[in-house]
């Protein structure tokens, strides 16, 4: 396991993203929506930074995208759900979605569908702390804390003090299912697990570490999409 961001890196990255958001989007009609269950904490931090810079309180909501996932029914158990709390109308606002790690893009696709059901935002932007590549959908981030080249089979995790006791980001190379929480690795032999968004599904224990060719990370895209 190697550390890619320490507490200071996280603080600086969030401060920079906050400046960029203010510069490009201004704060009129701006709202932040964090994707549970790390993005919501990052969104609150960003709101704090924006308050320091501009002296305005930007509304912050929490979005749970579970119901919009494209892999429901592919893992053994139904994915765990969290509560959505967006106590304001997003119609006509500029919504900055905030997530911890941008990977396949499937979480963001789900988040945009969820937002669309909540109202017609004027525009939707995306801010992430870590972009680790390996997109499976045509999605990119507008604000990025750090770009991190990774193997498909790596497990990248962002830590926030509120949940994990410290700030940072770590990469675990070619991991086993141990670190997974949301999608208990469906260690299907022929059918390597589903690429759950939060929990980039890692194939079974024996799965080759160098991913890519041998380990088609997303099984059942056809059924799932």
């Amino acid at each position, binding site marked *: 396991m190697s550390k890619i961001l320490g507490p200071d890196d996280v603080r600086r990255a969030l401060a920079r993203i906050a400046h960029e958001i203010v510069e490009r989007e201004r704060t009129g009609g701006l709202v932040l929506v964090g994707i549970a269950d790390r993005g919501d904490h990052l969104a609150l931090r960003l709101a704090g930074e924006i308050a320091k810079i501009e002296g305005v309180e930007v509304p912050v909501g929490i979005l*749970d995208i*579970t*119901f*919009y*996932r494209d892999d*429901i*029914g*592919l*893992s*053994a*158990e*139904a*994915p765990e*759900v*969290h*509560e*959505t*709390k967006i106590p304001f109308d997003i119609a006509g606002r500029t919504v900055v979605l905030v997530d911890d790690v941008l990977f396949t893009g499937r979480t963001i696709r789900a988040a945009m*569908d*969820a937002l669309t*059901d*909540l*109202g017609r935002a004027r525009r939707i932007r995306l801010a992430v702390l870590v972009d680790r590549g390996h997109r499976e959908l045509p999605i990119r981030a507008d604000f990025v804390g750090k770009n991190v080249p990774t193997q498909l089979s790596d497990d990248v995790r962002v830590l926030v003090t509120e949940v994990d006791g410290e700030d940072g980001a770590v990469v675990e190379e070619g991991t086993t299912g141990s670190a997974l929480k949301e999608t208990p690795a*469906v260690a299907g032999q022929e059918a390597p697990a589903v690429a759950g968004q939060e929990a980039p599904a890692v194939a079974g224990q024996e799965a080759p570490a160098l991913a890519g060719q041998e380990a088609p990370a997303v099984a059942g895209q056809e059924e799932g999409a």
Partner: protein
Amino acid sequence: MNQHLLSMHDVSAEDVIRILDTAESFREVGTRVIKKVPALRGRTVVNLFYENSTRTRISFELAAKRLSADVINFSSGGSSVSKGESLKDTALTLQAMGADAIVIRHSSSGSPFQLTKWVRGHVLNAGDGTHEHPTQALLDLYTMRERLGRLEGLRVAIVGDVLHSRVARSLSFGLVKMGADVTLVGPATLIPADAPQWGVHVSHDVDEVLSKLDVCYLLRVQTERQRLEYFPSVREYARLFGLNRSRVSLLPEGSLIMHPGPMNRGVEIDSDVADLPQSVIEDQVTNGIAVRMALLYLLLGGRQGEAAAEVTDG
């Protein structure tokens, strides 16, 4: 979670917490302008109702629709059942049409269990005879936890015709499982003989228990299920066990009045009592949708059973 929900014995205390927590998230969906999420797109839920029902059937239908599942409502009246089709043949027909879950209400105890032998999908018991009604029990547990903040240690009286009540059975099992203190109250003729083995207390005097309650749960007097006279008259029942204003004044501050509906106003509950602020009967109905969404989601949101998997993969 088991593949089916037939009885409160099918769920562990841990499952109950998971169901109630999941329902919490689904309740937020019910407050949106667009009260619908795509979680169960492409799944088919059949409501197979052999007995009349308003709230349970509509609640299940709304729950499935808010999850974007396709819903088929089947009631015995307008179907081939009136031509003499057996439950088994009906079940096999539904199976052949690709039902992923069957919600069944039937006047015979045990028919949902029977159904699980014939179909591959999930079976949810929406009330079978005088046996169980687990989704009602779960929505009641949800309502109690929401209003009172906990289940453990809650003092709950279930008052009325316990003998014929599937609600009372499921709710007792659920409450005992969650560590609540349950007292069944009613005339001796309407308390099942084996009740002490459920882990509950029994009383025949409602006035004696009221002052020690967090929840007073009233059962409907079910004249349609009674073949014999279990009590002399409805008027006597109302006088001895009906919840009226003066009995409500014995209840501690902050306690709840609950009823699974439909109410017989003036029998087990006085009309003005049903409309008091501590009566949470409408909350029960609202929460029922979220709890049933949670159940359908938890049962249908995972990979489908071995048999089903073989069929789709092959």
